[in-house]
């Protein structure tokens, strides 16, 4: 049986329970200090958008959270485990519960759409039968409106379709926490809005928590419960969309023009 998170977690309860806590996370590449004492909490059911300039370290931040990059110092507590201290086996267990949408989609180009979606299932849930896998693949693709592409090669898809397939692959394991790296970048405004609404919908339906990296203010407005400003490697400010939009701080204002 596949565990269905929504059964155990009725919407509206258990709010303000942190599913993720970052404390003083620092990371530098050579002399390039990307993150400096970044601290931040993510509560259950909350969707937080991270805003920051290009190159400010947003992708580095969420790669630290999923354990692809090891921070130089600080602790990253995800679902009760401190990520930098975990071994590979323990990391895999956490990763089965955390979805990650790559900025570049990262679809396997030697595989078909179906094989792309099957990959995380086969890897994380070895015990699933063929029919269960097939069902989930079709369901995930239908969710993003691309059921007809199932046997296409990923190289035959358009940019927006790739993004949606990547989204389906991220969501297929029904993660409790989702990390989106620029989910709407490169899409037309209509598709962008559809994706944003889909994200919102999924968050409600499965009561997932999410960190969303985005420059797209339309997307931000739709999905964000709150916004974190990543400036100079720090969590510079956090607040609701309207609060930050009306802020007097120059550095914050720049993002809302």
């Amino acid at each position: 049986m596949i565990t269905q998170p929504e059964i155990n977690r009725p919407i509206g309860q258990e709010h303000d329970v942190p599913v993720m806590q970052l404390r003083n996370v620092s990371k530098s590449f050579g002399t390039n200090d990307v993150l400096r004492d970044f601290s931040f909490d993510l509560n259950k059911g909350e969707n937080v958008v991270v805003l920051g300039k290009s190159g400010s370290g947003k992708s580095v931040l969420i790669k630290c959270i999923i354990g692809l990059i090891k921070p130089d110092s600080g602790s990253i507590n995800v679902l009760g485990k401190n990520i930098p201290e975990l071994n590979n086996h323990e990391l895999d267990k956490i990763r089965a519960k955390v979805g990650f949408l790559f900025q570049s989609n990262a679809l396997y180009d030697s595989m078909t759409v179906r094989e792309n979606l099957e990959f995380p299932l086969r890897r994380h849930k070895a015990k699933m039968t063929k029919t269960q896998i097939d069902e989930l693949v079709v369901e995930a693709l239908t969710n993003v409106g691309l059921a007809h592409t199932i046997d296409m090669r990923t190289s035959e898809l358009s940019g927006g379709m790739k993004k949606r397939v990547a989204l389906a692959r991220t969501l297929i394991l029904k993660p409790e926490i989702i990390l989106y790296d620029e989910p709407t970048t490169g899409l037309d405004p209509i598709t962008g809005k559809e994706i944003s609404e889909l994200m919102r919908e999924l968050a409600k339906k499965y009561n997932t928590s999410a960190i969303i990296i985005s420059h797209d203010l339309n997307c931000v407005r739709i999905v964000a419960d709150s916004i974190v400003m990543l400036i100079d490697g720090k969590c510079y400010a956090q607040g609701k969309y309207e609060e930050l939009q009306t802020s007097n701080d120059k550095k914050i204002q720049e993002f809302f023009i």
Partner: protein
Amino acid sequence: MKQGVLMRFLNETGDITRFAGRFFKEAFKPRYEIGEFLRQCFFIGYKSLPLVAITAFIMGLVITIQSRPTLVEFGAEAWLPKMVSVSLVREIAPVITALICAGKIGSGIGAELGSMKVTEQIDAMEVSGTNPFKYLVATRIMTATLTIPILVVLADAVSLYGGYLGANIRGVVSWDLYWNQVFDTLAFSDVIPSILKTFFFGFAIGTIGCYKGYNSNKGTEGVGRSANSAVVISSLLVFILDLLAVQIIDLLNLT
């Protein structure tokens, strides 16, 4: 951070050695990626077959034709099959096959892993509960190590057949006579060491291709460079290993 050429060379050599060491540490522990291994055998081994066979055939033919005049000069034309079979089996078939594979397989692996690296597919695998080193690297190194010797045995056979045709262009050597002479000449000490060394060729080609691809720099330009330097370095390594093999065989008096 400018480094001298020597430092860079030593650094790279160290990195490659460590990479190869990691292969031995990780490849033989579960979980075994059998499916991916078989898929690679098909792509790396089976798909190289025609190329290897054609080259080996031509080499056998050409070497025979070229050797004839010298032997005729010494009145030793009857020795043609003997001479040709030794040079083909001992040296030409293994090295030519390895070079072809360095070009085809080395660049293929380098470009494939390189593009997977720069488009974050390798990271995506890791996030999907897969050890990309085992899934991508270990399977490819293993495949190269095991399939190149098989290709060499095939190349031996095909090039000897080419030699038979070559011997019959100007002279007449019957099928039976040719093969009798060939098998009379070839001893185990010719065949076995020359096949053993190809395991090392295969390992080198697989390792360098994977190392270059897996450590590809950002950008599509990096992918091209990985593929290119994979071919250059692994071809060079094939010659160096061949040289070492000859010395060792010589030292052990296996000639």
